[in-house]
């Protein structure tokens, strides 16, 4: 039960991240106008994942939290992947 | 659960016996050991524990690995026999089974519809499964087969019955108030019986005229689909012109009732151009007037007047699954006395009482949820898949009640 206080994250960091997010948004919109077939969706998802990692690690301070928080998040992602993946063993092969 | 020697049941039973057998052994083992320990180490005899062992990784490993092996054999055996339930022998016959609240309809390739599943003995049968409303499940315990019927999706089961007899079909997926009554049977017939059933089937389901054409062998020389044969095709005759040779002259006539009657009773008087005068004459002895009329009507496409059988339609289409004929009220108003009844219906949120007539019944059939009989749920499916004639027949039948 040790209480460790977070150091405040400088305003600058947040603003930089915000800027990166805006750029990525523009990129994802731009890329979506290029026809890549099935790849479009994967590119879009990849960019979305990058954006969300930025939000999760910086905006949500996950970087500063203990390992427990990170393991928890990993567990969550694994479970979500399992839910979707195993559903597809049915849907794709029906 | 008749113990049957059929392929699907065997596939399932082998797995059942294997798993249940193993389970019984494991259960016995665990129970015996437990009881033995409890008796041997009871407190009155062992006031203090004689060991404080906290575990053993060797044992843990053993009883992790052993069960893995055991369950993997179960899994594999279960899966490989399941595959047998899905692979249909090449010579299987196909029957469509449609489930709806709360009855089954089986449709044969020739269009015949039945409420029981008639099949020949020793013949693999593929049952295609459909549903018109909610989920149901086609379950025949004797063959150990089960599969849900899903709206807008086709699925199937197959079985082969080595012995004649009657085997229960259940609906195994909960589907509402009639779920438990949604039962029927597989009737496994010997080959002869099946052949007879099949032919009687075609005959009785067809209009009389066609039956006569078949019975009299007309079809041996005439086709019904427009292909030329020994005789001219009997395809689409009504109102068409035809060149005939009469008394040595070639004239053109329009085919009508009288012409056809003459053509059957006295074929040689008028010969269709391009054909030989070889059709035998059929006198009243061979085809009586009634049958003659039926044939002529059939050829002129007037079969529609042959009225469908309202009673049969109501069974086939599952009306009786919800409505009773004997006056008992269940999910839906009974049909008994419906022709004379006054009903209170809710229409656009208002209650009105009206006398049952043909128009009301038609609306009740085609748009059942627009007017709801008071006290009942708006659950009746629209019967819009029926032809106008069939609807008429049902209405006529209901008004007789």
């Amino acid at each position, binding site marked *: 039960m040790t*209480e460790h206080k977070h150091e405040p994250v400088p305003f600058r960091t947040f603003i930089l991240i915000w800027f990166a997010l805006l750029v990525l948004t523009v990129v994802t*919109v731009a890329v979506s106008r290029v*026809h890549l077939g099935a790849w479009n969706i994967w590119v879009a998802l990849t960019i979305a994942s990058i954006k969300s990692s930025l939000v999760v690690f910086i905006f949500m301070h996950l970087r500063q939290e203990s390992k427990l928080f990170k393991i928890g998040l990993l567990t969550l992602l694994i479970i*979500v992947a399992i839910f*979707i993946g195993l559903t597809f063993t049915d849907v*794709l092969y029906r | 659960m008749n113990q049957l020697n059929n392929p699907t049941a065997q596939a399932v039973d082998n797995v059942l016996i294997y798993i249940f057998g193993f389970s019984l052994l494991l259960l016995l083992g665990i129970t015996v050991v437990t009881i033995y320990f409890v008796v041997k180490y009871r407190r009155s005899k062992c006031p203090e524990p004689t060991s404080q062992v906290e575990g053993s990784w060797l044992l843990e490993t053993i009883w992790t690995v052993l069960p893995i092996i055991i369950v993997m054999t179960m899994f594999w055996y279960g899966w490989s026999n399941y595959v047998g339930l899905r692979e249909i022998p090449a010579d299987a016959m196909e029957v469509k089974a449609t489930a709806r609240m709360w009855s089954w309809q089986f449709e044969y390739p020739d269009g015949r519809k039945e409420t029981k599943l008639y099949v020949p003995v020793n013949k693999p049968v593929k049952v295609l499964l459909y549903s018109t409303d909610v989920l149901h499940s086609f379950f025949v315990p004797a063959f150990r087969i089960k599969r849900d019927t899903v709206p807008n999706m086709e699925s199937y089961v197959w079985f082969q019955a080595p012995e004649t007899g009657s085997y229960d079909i259940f609906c195994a997926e909960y589907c509402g108030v009639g779920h438990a009554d949604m039962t029927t049977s597989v009737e496994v017939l010997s080959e002869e019986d099946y052949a007879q059933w099949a032919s009687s089937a075609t005959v009785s389901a067809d209009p009389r005229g066609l039956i006569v054409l078949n019975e009299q062998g007309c079809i041996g020389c005439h086709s019904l689909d427009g292909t030329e044969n020994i005789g001219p095709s009997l395809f689409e005759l009504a109102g068409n012109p035809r060149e005939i040779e009469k008394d040595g002259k070639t004239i053109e006539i329009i085919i009508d009732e009288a012409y056809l009657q003459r053509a059957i009773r006295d074929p040689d008087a008028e010969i269709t151009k391009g054909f030989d005068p070889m059709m035998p004459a059929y006198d009243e002895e061979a085809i009586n007037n009634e049958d003659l009329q039926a044939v002529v009507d059939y050829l002129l496409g007037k079969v529609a007047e042959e009225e469908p059988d309202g009673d049969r339609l109501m069974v086939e289409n599952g009306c009786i699954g919800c409505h009773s004929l004997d006056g008992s009220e269940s999910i839906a108003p009974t049909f008994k006395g419906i022709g004379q009844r006054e009903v209170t219906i809710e229409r656009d949120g208002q209650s009105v009482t009206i006398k049952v007539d043909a128009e009301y019944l038609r609306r009740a059939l085609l748009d059942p949820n627009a007017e709801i009989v008071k006290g009942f749920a708006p659950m009746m499916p629209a019967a819009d898949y029926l032809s106008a004639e069939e609807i008429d027949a049902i209405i006529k039948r209901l008004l007789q009640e």
Partner: protein
Amino acid sequence: MIIKGLLPMSIEHRDDTGARFGMWLFLYTEVILFSGLFILYSVGLAKFPQQFAEASHKLNIYFGTINTLVLLTSSLTIALAITAIQKNKIKLTLNLCFVTIFLAIVFLINKYFEWSAEIGHGIYPGSEHLAEMGPGITAFFNLYYFTAGLHGFHILIGGTLIAVVATLIAKGKVTSDRYTLLENSALYWHLVDLVWIFLFPLYYLIL
């Protein structure tokens, strides 16, 4: 009988990390909630790729993009608010909260116009126009409305939450050494943003 010290028993255990951890756990449940809809979406996409792309074109990409920018910015402002309160700049914190709430409202107004336009075109769940366009497109729009609707509902909750915390800050109940409430509301708000980060390309940008 010890009555003293009983009432504040729950407060006695001050555990900011624990509170944040609890909030994260709650966010997991939210993610799973949305993942149910994403499963439906992905199955729909696998089944009707063409129709989904076609339907996606009917959505207004400008509304979508602007709303993305709005939400990202609001995420920034609430993140800044935390740094501000850590540095004990109460005034700034409050202002950042207000900006966040303002942006939430902008988002909702935007959504309102977007939806009215679509509903004006006869596109809404259960509409006849939609039914005519076939199952693939219908499925897309049904999903779109319910996912975006659920997301909008979260915006509403998140905005309210931040408003409540702002009042507490103003009253001095949330301070520079006791700001877990603000942190947790911010976490919630970021989640709303996260969901949108995925929602946006999946619904507006497929080709």
